């Protein structure tokens, strides 16, 4: 199963996802974008999910929200399984669960004003009369650092990227949710604006006791905002654990590879060799056993035969790997050596995995 509860929160998870599977039918075949993922998010914590292209992290976000519904698995939010609800009952249950998207302009109807956009959830859930709604809109706009009188009547095209994302956040906050799913919310923003919006996320988290499911492809970013981090690859979770531990003592070779690939601004840091080789396998025919084995410098026969299960190796730190990295450093050198020699035999790389 997944990690145990962090010390500062209650023991019942706010969100408990079990064996979530999401399948797509494409002309080329069936793709399992999310392939049996389980995790918990506790009240007041931020769980970061990091993954690259094809990891399924965005599909995961939408499946949790039932838009569209997952193929199978359960999503327990505040005790109710969202996957089993329909219509108004789903609407009611989903009230405390909101989402912020990657493209701030794409997620705002260009024909609506800021005020209309932020009041939409209030109208849909019929909260209060017009006066109360207006007050709430003003309140929430101020929370995200926008002046209601200046920005309320504007259209998205009159806003900058950072401001538009703030509007999206304000809309998500309107109904006082307990959990916000953030799907790459700062990826399309410039570095300085990104920092501003991240600080906003933190401030709101502290002030409103929010929980986040924060999804991004940037590990440093995810670690910055999260209490716990989950690493995803090709539809499955590789490693879950407290952010610091995952960074300092990664257990999964893919996590290690991600860490090594991140360019550092420290001029004294020697640039490590990339410990990953090859290309992402086709999601229609993922490798047998461990999906990462075709690119893993530590892969052995067992990896092809048997799929590794998620095991808790340290307090709150779990990994799905037959040969996890034991301690910091030890795995790295070995991995580098293996990578250097095996990377030379190009014929192996790019071969269709079976």
């Amino acid at each position: 199963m997944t990690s145990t509860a962090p010390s500062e929160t209650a023991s019942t998870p706010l969100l408990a996802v079990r064996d979530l599977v999401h399948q797509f039918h494409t002309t080329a075949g069936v793709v399992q974008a999310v392939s049996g993922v389980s995790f918990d998010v506790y009240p007041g914590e931020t769980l970061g999910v990091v993954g690259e292209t094809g990891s399924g992290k965005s599909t995961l976000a939408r499946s949790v929200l039932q838009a569209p519904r997952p193929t199978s698995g359960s999503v327990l939010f505040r005790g109710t399984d969202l996957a089993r609800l329909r219509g108004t009952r789903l609407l009611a249950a989903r009230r405390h669960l909101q989402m912020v998207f990657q493209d701030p302009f794409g997620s705002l109807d260009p024909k609506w004003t800021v005020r209309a956009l932020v009041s939409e959830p209030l109208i849909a859930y019929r909260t209060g009369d017009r006066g109360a709604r207006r007050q709430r809109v003003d309140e929430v706009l101020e929370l995200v650092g926008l002046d209601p009188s200046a920005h309320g009547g504007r259209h998205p095209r009159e806003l900058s990227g950072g401001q538009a994302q703030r509007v999206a956040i304000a809309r998500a906050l309107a109904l006082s949710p307990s959990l916000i799913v953030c799907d790459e919310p700062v990826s399309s923003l410039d570095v300085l604006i990104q920092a501003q919006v991240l600080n906003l996320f933190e401030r709101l988290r502290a002030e409103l006791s929010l929980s986040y499911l924060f999804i991004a492809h940037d590990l440093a970013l995810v670690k910055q905002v999260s209490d716990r981090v989950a690493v995803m690859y090709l539809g499955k979770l590789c490693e879950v654990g407290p952010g610091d531990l995952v960074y300092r003592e990664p257990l999964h070779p893919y996590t290690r590879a991600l860490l090594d690939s991140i360019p550092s601004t420290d001029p004294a840091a020697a640039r490590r060799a990339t410990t990953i080789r090859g290309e992402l396998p086709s999601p229609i025919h993922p490798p047998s056993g461990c999906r990462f084995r075709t690119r893993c410098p530590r892969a052995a026969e067992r990896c092809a035969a048997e799929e590794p299960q998620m095991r808790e190796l340290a307090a709150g730190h779990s990994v799905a790997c037959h040969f996890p990295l034991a301690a910091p450093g030890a795995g790295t050198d070995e991995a580098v050596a293996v990578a250097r020699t095996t990377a030379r035999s190009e014929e192996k790389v790019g071969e269709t995995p079976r």
Partner: protein
Amino acid sequence: MPSGNAGPYERAPDERAGPVSESLLEVQDLKVTFTGGGRTLRAVDGVSYSAYAGQTLAIVGESGSGKTVSCRAIMGLLPPTATITGSARFAGAQLIGLTDDQLRRHRGADVAMVFQDPTRSLNPTMRIGPQIAEAVRTHRPVSKRQARQEAVDLLRLVRIPLAERRYLEYPHQLSGGMRQRVMIAIALAGRPRLLIADEATTALDVTTQAQIMELLLELQSELDMALMLISHDLALAASYADEVIVMYAGKIVEHAPASRLFSRVRMPYTQALLEAIPRLERPAHSPLPVIGGRPPDLSALPAGCSFAPRCRCAADDCRAAEPPLTEHEPGHRWACWHPVEGGAA
């Protein structure tokens, strides 16, 4: 497989502080303005730098800084509404002011560019092999068979395995990283001396980015090219470039060897950028030091330093007069009246 220098993964500090070979590209006081709707936008406002063979120069800035516009000006890829003045010499030959026909001779053969989105630059209805072969034949009068062979060689050069087989594939059959390698192969078809990578890895995953960057550096030393990296990613520049230029509002604000820039940053803007990047070493939930405001309106730049409205250290002299870009320390230039004493970033 050659891997270039003895230790490609380690950089001795200040190893490549000065020019080691002849300068391939010399840009002097380049200015680009756009006129439209009654307004004049000063996109690039007097930029000068040089690129040398065997060296990697990174130009870093946010959107609107002018980094992309300045490179496209050199390549002649700007719309007719742009007015370009100044000088950009490639191996002595002036590139500014040439007609499209004249520039075409330089493009690909002397200077080649790789862009951000390979999906849009590759013809989706044509197999990748012939696209590379076509690029080869644009620059050299070779037979079709010869071009095909060279295309396959280029695929191998960019480390695409099973090159013969991949030759026949369509772009949509390749991953993003592969497509970018194909773009690099096309760019190299003319055997350019200078390769400009314009946000070439921005759209790629971090692991793929690392692979592509490694490839670029290996190719640079194999082919003795000059490499220019245009990016918004300061960390990328720190890790892979020898020299770094930071641009803001159309001007160069800091220019130094990578090792020195990041260990002894001087310009408050550069410092702000560095501080705003999420760092693995930082504890979770720590607030990021951030400056407010937005980049200035390029058609109405403030008098004095363009960064003054947002700068922590701004004083009256900053708002009064624009600080010139001067080499205050050997190899390290900055444009600031009150530089910070930056320690290790």
